[in-house]
């Protein structure tokens, strides 16, 4: 391991706030097997600094943070007794539970990924805030309430006097995360652990939350341990970076060193795999290029864009979708999720669909597939309106438009083998005459998407997220579709896997002349894969243009605001500021 010498106290003024020494955590899987999640890692958290713990899923970053608070599940986790987590001269690993509980929330506090599930829905946010103050600071009554209002104001909640009596469901996701942060800083902790605090949020909200955490860190003289998979976010916020993979530290050091001259191949790979806004290689480099091969070859830039002469495969006009909720006894309230959207999809090209949550971008995809019935509008495919034809007739067209869902863990039937999953659409549509023929085709497709043939006999749970997404892609390919709708198809995947799946999608487009509608909230990915980008907000199209054009010269204010929120990573302003 290169570049893994622990940051010693010479790097930083004074001794570190927390020193993690040889932390080793394993999980009992069953009676005989254990799995080592963290393999003896050593790092320091200096005072008044932000340390980012970066890694993909399974790297052990969250386990490390839970071990600090003693929050690991007691029944199946083993922390090696040799491990040390030194805080204030005490080893947290051996601290009795009662002592540890006093530290939690008061000295060390934590914010979680999902604000929606971390707040108790049956109590007002004020009550939950005051509880923290009551338990740790001994505040009661009016004093607690006043402090709670102050905290809410500090984290930027508008009208805190009124919002303090709101229930979590009455706040937006970003506001809920602010409340979580308010609870975390309520007792002036010395260390704030933030476990993927912005992953579940929209890009504009993410920017606000990151700014909030950074300003609170400065104001309260806290240390922050920021856990994330997103290097761009790390580049914005971290002073020190610890890169983890498979329970080991691959590289650690000041952010400048890690970003500008990474020593470790894995760190280099992580930095390169992520699509960047200013470059568009024909293929994205993947981790294996770095770890096994000689490193990435130089890639030519791919030209993107739609010319007016491109043949149109799908013509959507005035598409609308309303949902109704009951109001009173007889009343109905209409909610327009999509309002009169029109666009054209050229053959063999990719239309990127971006927007924040609630913008209706997913509804557009589902409506085109008739998974939701459209309320208004037409979608012409080969001269026929897909949305108004009888469902019998639509069956023939159904296989021509396919969808790849966001969550590869949920979109594959857990009780089917991969073979059954891939053969199923063929037997429904009568593709291939005999069972043998279908099996042959299934094997061919498994090869095509880069899975070994033994996968045919396995169940989905035996595969990783990226492999499952390949299975889902293979399932769509059985029907030889013309249009593939990718609904956040790579959003749930790790950066390195994301690159592989994006490359696969690109190869398939080149090979079969598929047209993609690529729905995503991730603006960098959309920029990389799309010829044309359509920005949606509140069910309406804000702007539609060729992707290079829209990223360079966004016309509408909303697009400008959206693009400004993209985390720029190290190459952004901070790099310049540091120079």
């Amino acid at each position: 391991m290169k570049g893994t010498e622990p940051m010693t106290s010479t790097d930083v003024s004074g001794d570190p706030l927390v020193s993690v020494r040889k932390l080793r955590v394993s999980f009992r899987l069953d009676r005989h097997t254990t799995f080592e999640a963290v393999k003896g890692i050593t790092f320091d958290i200096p005072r008044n600094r932000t340390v980012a713990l970066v890694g993909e899923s399974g790297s052990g970053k969250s386990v490390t943070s839970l071990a600090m608070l003693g929050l690991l599940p007691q029944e199946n986790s083993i922390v090696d007794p040799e491990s040390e987590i030194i805080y204030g001269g005490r080893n947290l690993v051996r601290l009795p539970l009662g002592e540890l509980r006093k530290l939690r929330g008061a000295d060390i506090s934590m914010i979680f990924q999902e604000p929606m599930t971390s707040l108790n829905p049956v109590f007002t946010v004020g009550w939950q805030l005051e509880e923290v103050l009551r338990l740790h600071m001994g505040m009661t009554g009016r004093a607690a309430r006043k402090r709670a209002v102050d905290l809410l104001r500090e984290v930027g909640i508008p009208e805190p006097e009124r919002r303090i009596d709101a229930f979590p469901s009455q706040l937006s996701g970003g506001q809920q995360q602010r409340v979580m942060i308010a609870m975390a800083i309520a007792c002036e902790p010395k260390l704030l652990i933030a476990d993927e605090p912005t992953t579940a949020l929209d890009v504009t909200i993410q920017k606000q939350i990151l700014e909030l955490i950074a300003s609170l860190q400065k104001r309260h003289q806290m240390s922050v341990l920021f856990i994330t998979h997103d290097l761009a976010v790390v580049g914005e916020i971290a002073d020190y970076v610890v890169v983890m993979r498979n329970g080991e530290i691959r590289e650690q050091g000041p952010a400048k060193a890690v970003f500008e001259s990474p020593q470790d191949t894995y760190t280099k790979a992580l930095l390169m795999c992520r699509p960047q806004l200013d470059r568009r290689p024909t293929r994205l480099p993947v981790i294996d290029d770095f770890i096994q091969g000689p490193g990435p070859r130089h890639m030519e830039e791919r030209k993107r864009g739609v010319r007016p002469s491109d043949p149109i495969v799908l013509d959507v006009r005035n598409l609308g979708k309303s949902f109704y909720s009951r109001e009173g006894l007889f009343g109905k309230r209409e909610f327009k999720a999509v309002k009169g959207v029109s666009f054209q999809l050229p053959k063999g090209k990719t239309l990127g669909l971006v927007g924040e949550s609630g913008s209706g971008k997913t509804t557009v995809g589902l409506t085109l597939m008739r998974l939701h019935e459209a309320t208004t509008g037409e979608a012409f495919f080969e001269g026929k309106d897909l949305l108004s034809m009888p469902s019998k007739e639509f069956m023939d067209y159904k296989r021509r438009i396919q969808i790849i869902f966001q969550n590869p863990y949920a979109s594959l039937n857990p009780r089917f083998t991969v073979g059954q999953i891939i053969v199923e659409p063929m037997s429904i549509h009568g593709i291939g005459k005999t069972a043998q023929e279908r099996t042959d085709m299934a094997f061919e497709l498994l090869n095509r998407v880069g899975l070994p043939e033994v996968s045919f006999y396995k169940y989905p749970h035996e595969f990783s997220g990226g492999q499952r997404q390949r299975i889902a892609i293979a399932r769509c390919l059985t029907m030889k579709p013309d249009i593939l709708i990718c609904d956040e198809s790579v959003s749930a995947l790790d950066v390195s896997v994301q690159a592989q799946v994006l490359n696969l999608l690109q190869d398939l487009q080149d090979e079969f002349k598929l047209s993609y509608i690529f729905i995503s909230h991730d603006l960098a990915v959309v920029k990389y894969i799309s010829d044309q980008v359509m920005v949606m907000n509140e069910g309406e199209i804000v702007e539609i243009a060729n992707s290079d054009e829209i990223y360079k010269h966004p016309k509408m204010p909303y697009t400008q605001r959206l693009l400004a929120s993209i985390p720029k990573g190290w190459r952004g302003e901070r790099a310049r500021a540091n120079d």
Partner: protein
Amino acid sequence: MATDIAAPRDRSRPIVREIPHTVSPGLWVLAWRRLRSDRVAMVSMVIVAAFLVMMILSGTGLIARDWNREVGVNYAPPSFVETQGATPSNGQSAPVTTETPATGAEYKSMIVDPIGDVIEQLRSGSAPSAPAVPGTPPATEEKSVDPLADVMADIRAGKGVTAEAQAEERKATLPFGGDKWGRDVLKKTIKGSETSIFVGLASAALATFLGTVFGAVAGYYGRWVDDFFNWFYSVFSSIPYLLLILAVAAVLQQKGMLTIILILGLTGWTGVFRLLRAEYLKHKSREYVQAADAIGASNARRMFIHIFPNVSHVVLVQLSILAVGFIKSEVILSFLGFGVPVDVVSWGSMLNEAQNELILGKWWQLVAATTAMALLVTAFSLFTDSLRDALDPKLKGRAGT
């Protein structure tokens, strides 16, 4: 053959055989592994299996075929050592009954039709004992047919011959005791368990089937279909259970095993319905079902080929719970006299007989039926619990790592 995987393959050859595949454990295999490591589950499963084997053997007539034979004296007490008072000490196989040994002819004459006199009178037309209720026509000859005549003839003609030998060997004591007519309680219990278990399993299967189909349709389609089934469910579950059973029994008008199976099956589906409806509600919006819709799977296919394997463990556990419940219900019904007809023995009818016997101090029939039932029901319940644990969805997470 491992190298073949990577090698380009010849299209003409079937590939399936080339690949050395280890079949991956699915849910059921994993559940079975977990079940196997559970000692309680295995013991109770062996007991349940033993009962099932007994049921099959008895059903096919391999054992307890002659349960109806009156091998002992009336109320022969249970004893593994034959009582000396009745059996001659020289050990000869002399007739051991307390009554006079009956020859075949005598035995036939011993079979007395208890209502023979009444029928004679009816036939003669005088019918003095039948008070002419005003308005009712006097019983005519055509109508006064002895309903049991065939049975009696049967007994006189066919069974009498075996009764001859039977009568000779009536023992004073039986290992597990004898009933009112001197039938072996052990064999009677075996025959009784055949009825009870079969009724329990068959009605549980019927109830689970109905509950699953209703629940699947209601949960999957939602809207008015769901409303309809919920309404139906509410009506059904608002009527007291026993009253409902009596009502169905009254409608079906006849006693018999099929009737009880129908009664229990038609009244017991509500619990399964409620659970399965909830499962289908949950699953129909899952992405894998949307994906099935996207590839063009029809509603029925989505319901029963895509979703059903994901909820089948619930069905299995429900089936198991219902089987336990219905074995008990059958016993209760037969005990109350709404169950199996007189010529069929079940644990419930045994307990029914045992009421009167207990006053006379003849406890063995009660003990035999109760023990058998308690053993099976306890084992079955424990097995059901273990089964539910083994099929717990948490298993999936463990397998995933």
